[in-house]
């Protein structure tokens, strides 16, 4: 089936759906944001300390602060759009948000469909499990079961390094992954250091200990492809925040360690 044939067939059946859907605008995204007077940012809500709901029911975290910083830098109002790992990119691709600030790591697959700003936060992924399980590297995963949140960087990484006998259980989001680990459904999980810290903070009977590092993958702001003006503006905001120590303060406040000096630009 050729693309044009498919398109012709689609037009008849889902034309109405398409008409109602705003697809990525071909116009200048920065100009659109400035005109609307509001920037729509995809942020995590199940991912402390990057994004979670605070005791006052307001979103809080590193990514939330970063979104505020960007809105301030652009001089527009901020609209937070809660997303989970798996639907971050579709939200941007279908123009439901203008940018993604949601612990987004850079991968070749993602770079094929969206663009990335400079890095604004450090992030490490690793395999975690209770001390009783001896896993020191990918080879030790053979015959075991590991949990990941679907569509995350860890999902991709573990799939890449997985021995053939490793069973990968892919959960809907980080909250489900944490529950699966705590209820003993999966003995091992591959996730980011913040998630493991969040599990530890609950003082569970099964304590996740770091087994081995999967990837050092800092967070980037995701934006639609071919938006040089918006990209330049975002990079300027990040560079300024690095220079005046705002990012360093956010890193100490939310992550508990200083901002690494080698974040990729």
């Amino acid at each position, binding site marked *: 089936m050729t693309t044009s044939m498919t398109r012709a067939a689609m037009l008849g059946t889902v034309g109405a759906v398409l008409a109602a859907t705003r697809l990525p605008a071909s116009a200048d995204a920065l100009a659109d944001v400035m005109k609307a007077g509001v920037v729509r940012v995809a942020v995590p809500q199940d991912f402390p300390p990057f994004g979670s709901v605070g005791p006052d029911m307001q979103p809080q975290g590193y990514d939330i602060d970063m979104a505020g910083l960007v809105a301030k830098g652009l001089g527009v109002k901020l609209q937070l759009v809660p997303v989970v790992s798996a639907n971050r*990119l579709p939200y941007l691709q279908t123009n439901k948000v203008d940018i993604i600030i949601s612990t987004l790591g850079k991968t070749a697959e993602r770079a094929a469909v969206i663009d990335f700003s400079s890095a604004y936060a450090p992030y490490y992924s690793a395999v975690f499990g209770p001390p009783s399980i001896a896993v020191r590297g990918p080879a030790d995963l053979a015959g075991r079961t590991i949990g990941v949140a679907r569509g995350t960087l860890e999902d991709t990484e573990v799939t890449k390094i997985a021995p053939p006998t490793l069973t990968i259980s892919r959960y809907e989001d980080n909250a489900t992954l944490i529950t699966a680990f705590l209820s003993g459904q999966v003995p091992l999980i591959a996730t980011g250091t913040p998630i493991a810290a969040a599990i530890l903070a609950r003082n569970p009977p099964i304590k996740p200990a770091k087994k081995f590092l999967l990837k050092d993958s800092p967070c980037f702001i995701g934006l639609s492809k071919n938006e040089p003006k918006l990209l330049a503006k975002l990079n300027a905001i990040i560079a300024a925040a690095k220079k005046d120590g705002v990012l360093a303060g956010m890193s100490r406040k939310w992550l508990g360690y200083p901002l690494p000096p080698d974040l990729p630009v």
Partner: protein
Amino acid sequence: MTYQFHFESLAGYVDVLARGALLTVVLTAIATVVGLAIGVAGAAARRSEIAPLRVLAATYVELIRNTPFLVQLFFIYFGLPSIGVRLTANEAALLAMIVNLGAYATEIVRAGIASIAKGQIEAGLSLGLTRRQVFVHVVLVPALAKIYPALTSQFIIVMLGSSVISQISAEDLTYAANYIQARNFRSFEVYLVVTAMYLALAAGFRAIFRSVGNRVFAHR
């Protein structure tokens, strides 16, 4: 229209889609058979002369029909391990589908049984049939024939509702869709294809149910 479809980006994932569809079909088939058996037993229990049995069946039906399927699924998968019952994602999904369908089927079969005129039952008994024979031949089979369309609709609803089992990492058709979408980011294409697959599955199941119904209830 500015959107360019890239269905070729799905080419490498045909086996993932096929495996997902297969699991959806298998789970639905087992849940249909076992759920129907529970439905008949439950309906019989609801009109039983033993009061505790009636209460038990009524409680089961009300409990399941008045709580969300997703919560039932989470209860089985995440809750039961606390009391030592650890099921795999697929087992938990199957159990949730059976338990859920069983409750609805009980209510549907019960409605069918209630539609059988009392005179027919008395006629059966007066002809010297045993109570069991009356239940099977005079009550159950005619009742099933009457509610068969409603029952098959419920089977389809369970099949479509099973799309949420991917939440607990069961690898059904929706899981396949999410898995592919998380890798090639072609969400429109993926969900379009999977929607069509669900439609085809539902149509297929309906055709099978219709042919089974025509055979089983042929003399009616």
